[in-house]
């Protein structure tokens, strides 16, 4: 079972890879809308990638209002 820290790191690594950013360029507290300059649709695409990686289903409502990686990782962790 992953710890929350591990999950958070994997979320950050995957997001960086998905948006073709250097590894380590994202931080848990980053607002992904702002940091990545993405819109709500691009966020949904990122979520699909995270779901595939973690082997979970993350309903849209679970990420409603979430804009930072830390909270996103917590939502994922609760479903692992």
């Amino acid at each position, binding site marked *: 079972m992953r710890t929350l820290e591990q999950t958070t790191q994997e979320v950050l690594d995957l997001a960086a890879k998905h948006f073709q950013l250097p590894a380590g360029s994202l931080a848990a507290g980053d607002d992904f809308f702002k940091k990545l300059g993405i819109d709500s649709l691009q966020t949904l695409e990122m979520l699909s990638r995270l779901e595939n990686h973690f082997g979970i289903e993350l309903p849209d409502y679970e990420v*409603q209002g979430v804009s930072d990686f830390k909270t996103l990782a917590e939502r994922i962790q609760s479903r692992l």
Partner: protein
Amino acid sequence: MLDLSKYQSIGEALKDALDQFANEVCLIEADREREKERLTYREFKERANPLAKALQAAGFSAGDRAAIIMTNQSKWLISAYAIFFTGGVLVPLDYKLTPDEHWQLLKHSGAGFLITEYPIWRQLSGASGRAETTNVRMVLVTEAPPNADLGGAKRWEEFSEAGDPLFIARKRQDTASIVYSSGTGGRPKGCMMTHENYLEQCVALTSIYPFWPGVRYLSILPTNHAIDFMVGFFGPFTCGATVVHLRTLRPEYVRETFPKYKITYVSLVPLVLKNLQKGLQARFDALPPGKRKVFNALVAVNKALTKSRPRLAISRRLLKQVHEAFGGELRAIIVGGAFTEPLTLQFFYDLGIPVANGYGLTEAGTAITVNDLKPFRADTVGKPLPGMEVRIVNPASDGVGEVTVRSKTVMTGYLDDPELTAETIVDGWLMTGDLGRIDETGHLQLSGRKKNMIVTEEGKNIYPEDIEKVFESLPVKEFCVFAANFIWPKRSMVGEQLVLVVHLESGQQYGDELKREINARNNRLLNYKRIHGVVLLDEDFPRTASLKIKRNMLAERLAKFDSATAILPL
């Protein structure tokens, strides 16, 4: 289609529709690749009647208000039907708002009943606004896990009574719903819509874009939104058509839905339409040179053949693969909620996929103008719908002035706000606050806004007053939020932004600490509500005797600055 001129209310029309189209499929609900629900109109009625009966047993009666906060799904429509059947007033709220915003609007609306989904209720029940919202006396929650703490709510699935509910008649002029066009901050704008507003709008819209049994409408825009309520519920239901709901809006599942369910119509906001365009363009660009050449030639032929009107059968043959990706039966993409760039509209039309763009406001009962495609005009938002009178007030030499509307679809006013109502509806004409001109062919061309607001590409109306709360107690002398285009008008409806106007204390610097504070507060707002820059003003804001900021006067002062240098990026 039902003859809606015979009906007095939404409930009465829907009641007859459920009987008339009993064996047709009215609803399909899918979650990712799984189909969760498929209901005929008869089965819909069998689900809704026990709920209506239980509502009546719980004391819900004519004129009582019930709010729905749900994602698009079958229970949204079943609940709305039960509310209308029992003579109630529907308060549809945007599920994307924050819990505090939800409670604020629930309080303002005076709703006695709330119907919501468990994940939303989980957040709502613990929020501080609940204690103050004493008007909400019963909460029904859908899809709650077996052992969930419902925080005083009841399970929607168990809230039912046997026997036939009593249909409660309403008159055309009675309020059918209270729809919030904005106002989660300072001044909630609850549009009071009558049954007549909806009945008339439905007749007007379906005269141009008809529904019939067999039509499948993909409901993606939230149903609380005026467009989806009309074309994703009332319109298709009164014509015996089918509504398809998706529980996820992930692009990959949305794409699969078109061919899977042979979608006929879909409504999208410009942001999603542009995303679709981007995806298609990337696929076209990736074609090998030879195929690309053939494809471009086919598009050119299609363009020539559809110059005067759409020819779906020809377009589907010419550009078979493109149309098959959309299921092969798509008749039009309805786009609304915000202004759509002409190039995007033209892109789809050239592929033989008509985009029904238009112009509307919640206050006007959804659509005011719609492109009738005869011929398609990407540079306009179409002609006024039947029954709509559109007039341009105080036109400049180029014909551009404020767009005003008079029709049976215009709301009666804003809930509990006679002052704002009087400013908005003048001598029976709805002052839209939008600027435009009517060209020689009767098409409306929009060219900016007179009002202090922005509309995002996601179709969200953002009023500066609504987001000022988050900057309260900012360590500066005074501040105010503006739509940049209100200060520096531009003849455009895209790329609108909000700015924070700041008057620093005497001797105070606009330093890193203040910037961090502004950024931190800005980040508390949902991403589409955030300000994009700061304007520094070194003078006192003009104020009324009651110390309210005179926004118009302040905007006039700011307009003297050059926007290119005055707006400091965050």
